[in-house]
Structures are given as C-alpha cells and as structure tokens.
C-alpha cells in the first residue's frame, strides 16, 4: 500500500507542473510550516498580552492539547483526502503534519508538567498513576515518540519499509487513546459535546480505512 510510504512523490514532478499546481510550489512546505506554528504563536502572544483569560495556565495547556489533536486528525485525513480529491501530491505534507502533532503533544505535556504540576517529577508520576485520563494522555504521547523518532527517510531504509509501515500504523491506536484522554477529561463535568465532534471525525477517518480494506 503506497499510501503509507513516506511522501516524496512531489519532488520528482517536472517544473512545468509545479507552476500549474499550487501544492507543488517550492514555497508550499514553508507556508504549511508557518501555518502549523500559527496556533503556538497565537497562544504565546495571548499569554504575553494577558488575554488567556482568568486561568491562563489552563488555557495554555488545553490550547496546546487541542492543536495536538487537530493536527493528528489532519494528518490522518491526508490519505482519504488524497483519494477523494485525486490530489496525490497532498502526501508530501503528511510527515510535517504528523511531526507538528507530536510537537504540540510534547508542548501540551510540558505545559501540564510545568504549569500544572510545577515540574515536580514525583508528583507527575503519582498523577499519571492516579488519574486514568492523564495516563491515557501520557500513553498517547509515549506511543508517538517512536513514530516521531523514525520519521526521516533513513529510518525507513534502516527498518525496512514493511516494518516501518507496521510501526507507523500505531497512529490509529494513538488517535483512539488520545480521544479517550479527551473524553475522560470531559467526563468529569459531564460535557461531551466537543469530544463527540472529534470522535465523529475520527470515526469517519478510521471507518473509511476499514471500509477500504473490507472492499479490498
């Protein structure tokens, strides 16, 4: 299944095509990179401006978590979108999006550990064991680490494309664990509206894959 191989298809395209296709523009990746940094810049700006609300630490932690999840969902949407829209070139952005999901997840974890727990590792350890939703979030991040660590081209060669692919299918597990983290967090206040939206989108993204597989 080529859809799981790293995206390098765009690079081989002839220059004449690049002019016609905005996704192949040399600056496309740079633009996406800047876009992905946008939410972080916005959160940091609001922190400095003092407009993160009455509980800035909570707003920061939640904002970073929201974007980790959104970027992971966007990453998962690349393959279906590619097929629906007939734009195979979309694949060249997938790795960057996945890495940004990891980047925001890491900042989310750091913000929790720092702003919420005061970087007290013993306290954080106890919290992870005690609070299932924290455990879920932490597990999702831990599972993301090997994916981020093997996201460069040489890792594919070293692992072999087949094993690399199997490893990177962990992303499906991670997305479900991440969603559980979110649901469990909101369960405390009986407030499932937002998790339902994320859950619905994820159901479509994963359901599409299952449907494809079944249809062969």
């Amino acid at each position, binding site marked *: 299944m080529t859809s799981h191989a790293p995206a390098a298809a765009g690079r081989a395209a002839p220059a004449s095509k690049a002019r016609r296709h905005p996704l192949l523009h040399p600056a496309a990746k740079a633009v996406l990179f800047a876009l992905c940094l946008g939410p972080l810049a916005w959160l940091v700006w609001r*922190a400095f401006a*003092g*407009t*993160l*609300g*009455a*509980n*800035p*630490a*909570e707003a*920061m932690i939640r904002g970073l978590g929201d974007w980790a999840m959104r970027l992971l969902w966007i990453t998962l949407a690349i393959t279906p979108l590619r097929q629906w829209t007939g734009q195979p070139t979309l694949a060249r952005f997938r790795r960057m999006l996945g890495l940004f999901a990891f980047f925001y997840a890491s900042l989310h974890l750091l913000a929790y550990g*720092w*702003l*919420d727990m*005061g970087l007290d590792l013993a306290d954080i350890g*106890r*919290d992870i064991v*005690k*609070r*299932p*939703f924290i455990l879920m979030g932490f597990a999702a991040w831990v599972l993301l680490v090997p994916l981020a660590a093997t996201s460069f081209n040489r890792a594919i060669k070293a692992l072999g494309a087949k094993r690399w692919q199997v490893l990177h299918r962990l992303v499906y597990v991670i997305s479900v664990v991440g969603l559980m983290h979110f649901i*469990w967090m909101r*369960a*405390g*206040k*009986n*407030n499932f*509206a937002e998790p339902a939206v994320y859950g619905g989108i994820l159901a479509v993204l994963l359901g599409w894959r299952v449907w494809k597989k079944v249809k062969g």
Partner: protein
Amino acid sequence: MHFLPQRDGQRIPSSDITPRDVYDSRRDWLKTAGALGLTGLGLSGTVQAQTAGPGKLAKLPGAKSAVPGGFALEKLTSYQDATTYNNFYEFGTDKSDPAKNAHTLKTRPWTVAIEGECAKPGRYGIEDLLKLAPMEERIYRLRCVEGWSMVVPWVGYSLSELLKKAEPTGKAKYVEFTTLADKAQMSGVRSGVLDWPYIEGLRMDEAMHPLALLAFGMYGEVLPNQNGAPLRLVVPWKYGFKSAKSIVRIRFLEQQPVSSWTKAAQQEYGFYSNVNPKVDHPRWSQASERRIGEDGLFAKKRPTLMFNGYEPQVGQLYAGMDLKKNY
C-alpha cells in the same frame, strides 16, 4: 490598585498590584483601627471602597460581617476574573459561557418558594428578601471541585435568617435548593448535560450555620447574572457546586435530597462535598488548587486547606463522621 475596577477586557499590569507585604500591613492597620473603634468614625468606608465593582450594576453595600471566619484577609480576585470564569451550566459548559449568555436572564420579578417541613411555608418576592435582614459583606474563599479557587467579597446575610422565618418543624432534617431552569432564558438548559432543574442540598445544621450565606451581591453591587442573580447560596467550606445559583425554591425535607451532580455521577460528587485535601476526586487530586488571577501563567498552586480553611468554624459539624465515606 488591584481592588479597583478594571478597564474593560484589560489585565492590570503587575506594577499596579500592591505588593503582598504592603497589602498585609494595610490590612493589619485596618484591623487595628477597627479594634480601636476608628472604623466607627467613618473609616469603615475604606473597607467598602476596597471591594467595589465596576459600577455597572446597582449598588448593594454591606456592613463588614462580624461572623467568625466571615472576613478572609486575602487578596481579592479581580471583579473581571470573578465574573468571566464561571461554572453555571444553565448558560453553557465553558467557563466563559455564563458571562456571554446570562444577559437573557430576567431577575425581576423574582420569587422564592419556601416549602416542605415548616410551619410557615410561603413565597417571598426578591424585594422582601432584600429587606429581610441587614446586608453584610463577607470575604470568602471559594474552592471549585475542579481545583481552582477565588476570593470573593459577597454581600448578603446568613441563610439561617430566612430559614428561621419559615419555622422548620422537627421533621426537617435537610434543606433542598432548586435553581431556575427556564429554556427561554437559559440557553444551556436545552442541553442534556444535567437533569434540570439544578438541585442541591444541605443538612439542616449546615444550612443553619452562620457561615452559610444567602448572597444578593458581590463587590458592593448586586450579583451579575452569571454569578447567580438575583440570589444564590454561598457555602464556603464546600466545593462551589454545592452553592446553588438563581434560587427559586427552598424545601425542608425529612430525607436527604439527591443533588443534580450526585445523580449525574454519584461516585464523584457526594452529598457533603466538603473541601478536603485528603479526599481526592476519583480522577484528580484535591491536595492543591490554583488561585485564579494570581501571578499569571507560571503561578504555583497552593495547598488546599481542610474545609477550605473554615475548619475552626465548621469542623464540629462533622465530628465522628468518616469524611472519606461521606465525601
């Protein structure tokens, strides 16, 4: 100075915040002045000026309360934070929702029905309730079960003042509070988040405790809608959700009422819900709390106090009780 009304939507620069030691020394001076009887010579106005709201709502001044524990000497949460960071699910589940949506609530006319095990049930109009007892200002710590806290200057009088008028019978063991649940005025009531109307309850002796406050105002003004206008309960030694907002019915009961949160998640929100750092919520520790508006993003959390620091006043209510079991 941090007690003064804030410019709309702006944070007070840290340079404007009175250093803690200056603040404390002024408080000490006020206490001394009070002890010397100076407050009677017009200086009591200083206390009121400290707790003024932005002046957008009707004034509701209160005399400094003499109830033990009723006047916490702590830095007040800014009016802006106390009125924009709220849990009031009838207006939405986001903390910012109540401030956005509660303008649709009509607080006049307003009546509170008193029912159940009492000799004199009846209905009180809000105007009667406002005149029922002298208004007191009380500065209470408010601890939410979610792990954050505020310090709010409330205006009202002890709930017992009203309850006594109804002459509860010997059968009255509990008091139940019901919040307004009107879809037309409260956008959140259409959601199925809770089983409306919002119900909360207290044991009779808790309800009669002088610290249990029937509040009509805060920061020297009437309550903003998002904070529970026109009248709410404030039970400072319990988690915030025990303090029902926008109350329309008070009922004396022989049996322990089932509160909305107990109904929604019994294992998480017990009937007592006393602030207790030693009894964790099933999904998070209650040992510490974040004081809202304190030192910004990198503020350290502070340890939570037993009964939210009101143990000397209310501890005896729970003598011999297992507070792990009766959470």
